C-alpha cells in the first residue's frame, strides 16, 4: 500500500522539512544578532541627534541658536542623516518660530531639494518617506510633485501622499485628490482629512462633485462641504440627505448639515429621523439637529426625546443635554411634561450632575415617580 515512489521520497521529504526548520532557526538567530549589533551602534547616535534637534527647537533666539546650528552643520554622513530623520519626525508636533528655524537649517543643507528629488525616483518606500517628510515640514513647493504620486501603483505611497497634501494644504491639489478617490486609488477617510484644511478655498471643485455618480466621491464632497460650512451646497445637501441611495452618504450629509447649522435644514433632518430605514442616518440627523440652535430645532428634538424608540429618544435627550445653558432648562420642562420618560430623566440627571450640583438628589425632578 505504500508504493515505491513514496518510499523513495520519504527520506527526502523528512530531510527537507527538518532542513527548512533549521534554516528558519538560523535566520532567526542571524536577524536577532544583526539587530542587536545595529542598535548598539545606532542608538547613541540617534540619542545625540534627538538631543541636538530638541536643543535647536528650544532656544529662544537666532543668536542662541547659532552655537547649536554650528554643531549641527558640522555633522556629516550618517550622523547628519539621523539628525534629518529626527527633525522630520518631530516637526509636526510643534509650531511657530522653533519649527521655522529647523526647516531653514534643512533648506540650507539642501535637504528639501534632495527630498523633492527622491519623490520622483527610487523605491516605493523611499518615495513615500520623502512625501511624508515634506508633508511634515509643510513644504509648499512639494505640493504638485506629491500630487503626482497619487497615481503611483503602491497604495501606501498614495496614502502617504494624500496625508502630506493635507498637511501642506495647497488648494491646487484638491482636484487630484478627488480624482484619486474616484479611481479608487485612495481611501475616503484620508481624502476627507486632506481636503478639509483646504476648506472654502476649494468650494468650486467640491460643489461640482456633490452629485458624482460614485458614493465614495459624494461622501468626500459632503464631508468637506460640512466641515468648511459651504452654505452654497445647502440645496443639494437637503436633497441628498433624504434621497441619496447610499445609506452612508445620507449619514455623512446629515452630519454636514449639522456642521453648517442652517435653520432651513430642520425639516429635512426631521424627515431623515422619522423615515430613514437606517438607524445610523436617524442618529446622525438627531446629532445634526442639536447643532442647529433655533427654537424650531429644539422643539423637534423635544418631540424626538419623547419617542418610543429608545435609540432615538435617548439620542435626542442626550443631544439636548449637551446644549450649553438651554439644555438643562429644556430638559427640566420635558421632565414635567413627561415625568415617566426614562430617557429624558436620564439625560436630565446627567445634565444636573455636569452643572456641578452639590446635592443632586434633592432636586425635585431627580427621580422618576
Amino acid at each position, binding site marked *: 500500500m505504500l508504493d515505491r515512489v513514496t518510499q523513495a521520497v520519504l527520506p527526502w521529504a523528512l530531510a527537507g522539512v527538518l532542513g527548512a526548520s533549521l534554516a528558519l532557526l538560523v535566520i532567526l538567530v542571524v536577524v536577532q544578532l544583526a539587530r542587536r549589533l545595529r542598535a548598539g551602534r545606532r542608538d547613541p547616535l540617534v540619542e545625540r541627534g534627538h538631543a541636538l534637534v530638541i536643543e535647536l527647537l528650544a532656544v529662544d533666539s537666532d543668536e542662541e541658536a547659532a552655537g547649536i546650528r554650528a554643531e549641527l552643520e558640522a555633522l556629516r554622513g550618517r550622523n547628519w542623516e539621523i539628525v534629518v530623520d529626527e527633525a522630520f519626525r518631530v516637526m509636526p508636533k510643534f509650531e511657530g518660530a522653533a519649527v521655522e528655524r529647523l526647516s531653514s537649517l534643512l533648506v540650507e543643507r539642501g535637504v528639501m531639494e534632495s527630498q523633492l528629488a527622491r519623490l520622483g525616483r527610487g523605491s516605493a518606500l523611499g518615495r513615500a518617506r520623502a512625501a511624508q517628510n515634506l508633508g511634515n515640514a509643510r513644504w509648499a513647493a512639494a505640493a504638485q510633485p506629491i500630487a503626482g504620486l497619487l497615481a503611483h501603483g503602491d497604495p501606501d505611497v498614495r496614502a502617504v501622499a494624500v496625508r502630506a497634501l493635507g498637511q501642506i494644504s495647497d488648494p491646487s491639489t484638491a482636484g487630484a485628490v478627488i480624482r484619486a478617490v474616484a479611481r479608487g486609488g485612495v481611501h475616503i477617510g*484620508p481624502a476627507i482629512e486632506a481636503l478639509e484644511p483646504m476648506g472654502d478655498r476649494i468650494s468650486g471643485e467640491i460643489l461640482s462633485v456633490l452629485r458624482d455618480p460614485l458614493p465614495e466621491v459624494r461622501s468626500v464632497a459632503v464631508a468637506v462641504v460640512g466641515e468648511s460650512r459651504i452654505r452654497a451646497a445647502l440645496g443639494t445637501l437637503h436633497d441628498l440627505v433624504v434621497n441619496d441611495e447610499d445609506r452612508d452618504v445620507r449619514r455623512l450629509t446629515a452630519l454636514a448639515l449639522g456642521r453648517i447649522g442652517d435653520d432651513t435644514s430642520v425639516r429635512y433632518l426631521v424627515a431623515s429621523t422619522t423615515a430613514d430605514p437606517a438607524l445610523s442616518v436617524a442618529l446622525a440627523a438627531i446629532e445634526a439637529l442639536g447643532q442647529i440652535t433655533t427654537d424650531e430645532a429644539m422643539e423637534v428634538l423635544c418631540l424626538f426625546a419623547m419617542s418610543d*424608540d429608545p435609540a432615538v429618544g435617548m439620542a435626542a435627550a442626550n443631544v439636548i443635554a449637551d446644549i450649553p445653558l438651554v439644555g438643562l432648562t429644556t430638559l427640566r420642562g420635558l421632565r414635567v411634561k413627561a415625568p415617566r420618560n426614562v430617557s429624558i430623566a436620564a439625560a436630565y440627571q446627567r445634565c444636573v450632575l455636569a452643572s*456641578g450640583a452639590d446635592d443632586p438628589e434633592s432636586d425635585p425632578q431627580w427621580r422618576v415617580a
Partner: protein
Amino acid sequence: MDPCPLATASFVDGLRSVVEALVVALSWPIITYFLVLNTSFLALIVLGWSSSYRDRRRAHLEGAEHLLSSGRVAGISLVVPSYNEEVGIVESIQALLALTYPEVEVVVVNDGSSDRTLQILIERFSLIRVEPQTHGAITTRVEPTATYIPRDGRGGLLVVDKPNSGRSDAINVGINHASKDLVAFVDADSVLEANALLAVVQPFLDDPLRCIGSGGSIRPINHCVVDRGRVLEVRMSPKYLPRIQAVEYIRAYVLGRQGWARAHALLLISGAFGVFRRDVVLSAGGLDSYCIGEDLELVTRLHALHRRSGTPYSVGFVAEPTNWTEVPPTISVLARQRRRWHRGLWEVLWKHRRMCLNPRYGRIGMVAIPYYWLFEMIAPLLEVIGMIVVPLGLALGVVPWQYAVLFILVAYTYGFFVSLAAIVIDTIHFRRYRRGKDIRRAVTAVIAENFGYRQMTAVWRLQGWWAALRGKTAVWGVMSRQGFGGSSTSDEGS
C-alpha cells in the same frame, strides 16, 4: 486446555482485521488531510505576514499623532462585562479610560458579582445612581437593575448593575447602554496596549462607509510584568502550558486571522478584542446569548445579514494592536476552555449550516465556512483516529513503519515547521518578544507542543463536540465565565 490464549489470539485477530480495514480505508485520506491542513496553515501565516508587513510599513509611515488630532476617528464605547473582578477592576478601568484614543466611553456591566466589585466601583469613582441610559433595544435575558455615573457628571464612565446571566448577555446589556458610534467588548482581566484602539480602528478610517467590524491580536499575558493595567515588560512564561498557548495564539490569532482578513474571508473577530459599528450590532440584535461561541456567531451572522441583503461591507483585522489576556495556566481549566470552544464552534457552524457551500454567501459561504467545517470541526476526530490507529497498527503489524513515519512527518513534523515559521515571523516582524530567553522558550514550546499537548487538545475538542451533539444544556453564569479572558475566543487553527 486453557481457553485464554485462544480467546486472546482471536481477539487480537479481530482487532487486527478492524485496524486493517481502518488503515485501508483511511490511510491515504488521513495523510492527504494533514498535508492540506498544515499547508493551509502555512498559507494563512504567509498571507498574514505579507499583509501585516504592509500594515506595519504603513503604520510606520503614518504614525499615530495625526489620527489623534484629525477629529475623524469615531468614538468607541468599551463594554466591560465584569464578574467578581474586585481585585483589579479599578486599575483596569482607569487604564481603559486613559487609552490613547480621542473619545472613549467605558460601560462596565456588573454581571451579578458576589464580591464587592460594584461597591468598589461606586466608592472609587464616586458614582451616583441615575435612571438607565438605554440607547439600544437588544432583548436581554435579564433586565439591568441600576445605572451609575460619576457624581461630577464628567461622562465617559457608566456602570450598569444586573443579576448574573453570563458574559454575552452582560455584553448585550452593555451595548444597550453604549452611546458611541463604535462598540468594543473588553474583558476586565485583560490588558489593552495603550495605542491599540487607535491602530485597530484603521479599517474604519480607511473605509468609513463599508467597514462594520475590525479585530486585533490576542496574546497571553501570563508571566508578563503588569502594573496598573499596563504591560510593562513582555515575557514568555517559563511554564509549558501557557508557553505552548502563546505559540498557538501567534499562529492562529495573530498571523492566521491576518491571513483570513487578507483573503477577505475573516469569520472570527475575537470577542476579547473586537470593535464593531454600534448601529450594525444593534440592528443585528446583539450577541446570541444562547450560543457558546458568541463572538464567532456574531461575525458569521453579520456576514450572513449583509450578504443576504446585498449591502456592501467589509470586516478588517490589524495584527499589530494587541490585547494581553490571561490563558488557562492549568490542565483542568484549559480542558474546560477547549471543550467549550469546540462546542461553541459546532453550535455556530450548525446554526449557520445553510451558509456552507452556498454561493450566495460569496467567499464566506464557499471558502471560510467549509474550511471551518473541514479543518477546524473535524480536525480533532481525524487526529484522534490517527493517534490510535497508527500505533495500534504498528503494534499489530498491519501498518508498515514507513507509513508511521509518513504520518508523523505530515501531521507532526510539518506542523512543527509551520509553528516554527509562525514564531520566526512573529519575532522578526512584531518584535513583542525581545529577550533571547523568551525566544528560546518559544522555540522549545514549538517542539514540546507535539508531545502531549496536541493530543490532549484533540481529545478535549472531541469531548466538546460530543457534549454539543448530546445537546447537554449549557451552564450559564459562573461556569460560563470560566477559562479566563481567552474564554471569549473560539478556537481556530490549533
